[in-house]
């Protein structure tokens, strides 16, 4: 597993705190390579290759699969023919019908079949590779083009963030852990959340899970989204029983003069959220609605919606996407999930 070795090499030296920020990629980016059958023929005469590619491509363009290279040099140096060419896609039905001959695949004679050997079926990657591991897997089946996303590569190798940025992340996650512990003392699930404006570095809201109080939907994320709303002069819930849930009173007057528009940001646009554990589907979608910029969480959850069970942050069919990283203070966040909750008598809301 070459990519793994590489990752370890780069991650170890600059990792004194014992945790690593890992990107949670989209489903398409993190999944393995899917393959489909195509008809391939050997090119027996190398001199015919250029003409054959032109003629075959005219009859069967691979329009939906531009990442596939039409021709490949043979894998084995002992091979009797030097090149192989993709003729056309083979549907699964054709696969059942078995092999077809060259004359069946090119019945109308638009292609001069000189120099081509008997067709056979091969499996090639359906989608263009998005990450280097996917590229390596895809290319082992058939040559493909790869437009590397430098940002993703950097993220995977752990070099996306500077030590200074990592120190800030650690500070914010420590705050999330601290508030989770305060919540646990009140009999709540030990989950904490912090919202930060990454431009100013200001902490805008700090909240813990309140679901075991009066409202089963007050997960830490929902609490923090509402605390940000309070800081903007809105909000839906009162937290007087939970003094650890706090928000920064924004100075609207000065903000108004400093920025364009009405000065108050639109919900959580541009903000980062730190969460001790991966949020559920309700919370992950609430963050889509709130236009969060990035989410950092400590440990995955069995029902998590940002990488484990769903990838709600990276769906093309939703109207907002955000970046997700996991692993920030992973060890301490893991210990936090093991904190026994003090079961107080179930409180009725006042």
């Amino acid at each position, binding site marked *: 597993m070459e990519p793994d070795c590489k990752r370890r090499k780069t991650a170890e030296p600059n990792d004194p705190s014992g945790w690593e920020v890992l990107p949670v990629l989209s489903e398409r980016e993190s999944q393995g390579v899917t393959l489909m059958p195509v008809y391939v023929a050997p090119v027996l005469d190398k001199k015919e290759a250029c003409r054959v590619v032109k003629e075959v491509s005219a009859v069967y363009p691979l329009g939906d699969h531009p990442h596939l290279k039409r021709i490949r040099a043979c894998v084995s140096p002992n091979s009797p023919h030097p090149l192989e060419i993709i003729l056309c896609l083979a549907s699964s039905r054709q696969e059942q019908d078995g092999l077809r001959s060259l004359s069946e695949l090119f019945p109308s004679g638009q292609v001069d079949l000189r120099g081509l050997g008997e067709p056979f079926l091969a499996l090639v990657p359906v989608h263009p590779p998005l990450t280097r591991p996917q590229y390596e897997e895809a290319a082992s089946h058939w040559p493909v083009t790869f437009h590397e996303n430098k940002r993703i590569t950097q993220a995977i190798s752990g070099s996306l963030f500077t030590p200074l940025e990592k120190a800030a992340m650690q500070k914010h996650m420590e705050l999330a852990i601290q508030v989770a512990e305060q919540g646990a003392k009140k009999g709540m699930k030990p989950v904490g959340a912090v919202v930060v404006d990454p431009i100013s570095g200001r902490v805008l809201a700090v909240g813990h899970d309140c679901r075991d109080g009066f*409202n089963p939907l007050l997960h830490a994320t929902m609490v923090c989204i509402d605390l940000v709303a309070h800081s903007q002069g809105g909000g839906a819930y009162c937290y007087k029983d939970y003094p650890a849930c706090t928000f920064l009173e924004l100075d609207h007057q000065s903000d108004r003069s400093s920025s364009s*528009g009405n000065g108050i940001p639109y*919900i959580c*646009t541009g903000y980062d959220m730190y969460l001790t554990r991966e949020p559920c*589907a*309700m919370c992950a979608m609430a963050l889509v609605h709130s236009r969060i910029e990035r989410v950092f969480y400590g440990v995955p959850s*069995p*029902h998590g919606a940002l990488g484990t*069970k769903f990838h709600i942050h990276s769906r093309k069919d939703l109207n907002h996407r955000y970046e997700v990283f996991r692993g920030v203070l992973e060890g301490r966040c893991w210990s936090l999930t093991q904190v026994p909750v003090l079961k107080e008598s179930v409180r009725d809301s006042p």
Partner: protein
Amino acid sequence: MAELVALPKAEEEATEREEGGVTPAETEAWMDRALAMAKEALENGEVPVGCLMVFNNEVIGKGKNEVNETKNATRHAEMVAIDQARDWCHQHKKELEEVFLHTVLYVTVEPCIMCAAALRLMKIPLVVYGCQNERFGGCGSVLDISSATLTDMGEPFQCKVGYRSEEAVEMLKTFYRQENPNAPKSKVRKKTALSDEVSEVQ
């Protein structure tokens, strides 16, 4: 609390739910009311979604979108209605679960992914809705949160779909055709704000 009819027995409830939970007449009556609420919202320039939570033939929660007034993007009609139903439980000194397990949600549009997850967490057994929510739907359109197997995420719920869906869709289309005055600041928004100020000065 004394005059409230006793809850149906567990077995009766189970058979009732297998048959769809609600009669067509109930569906029509409550959905007509939900649609009237959505229409009212549209006329007031708000997202045209109406919903009702019905327990023992009584409306214990109803909601309209409160995103703009609370500056909280999670205040969808369903979330507001759930809060009202929770308040109703506290007022009537009833356990949440005992009530929500026998409550039906009537809503004009398929709940979004967030609301579908919330309905699971509240253990609502049945949701009757009008039209699909192609942009955010959590009952099959984008994701199927309603029937997915999810640990620690309440219980799956049943859906009954389609009553007066064309009208619900039409209202949404009308709403989205309008300029959304509450969208994040854009040039259009700034211009309007400015012209408002100007007209105020004048």
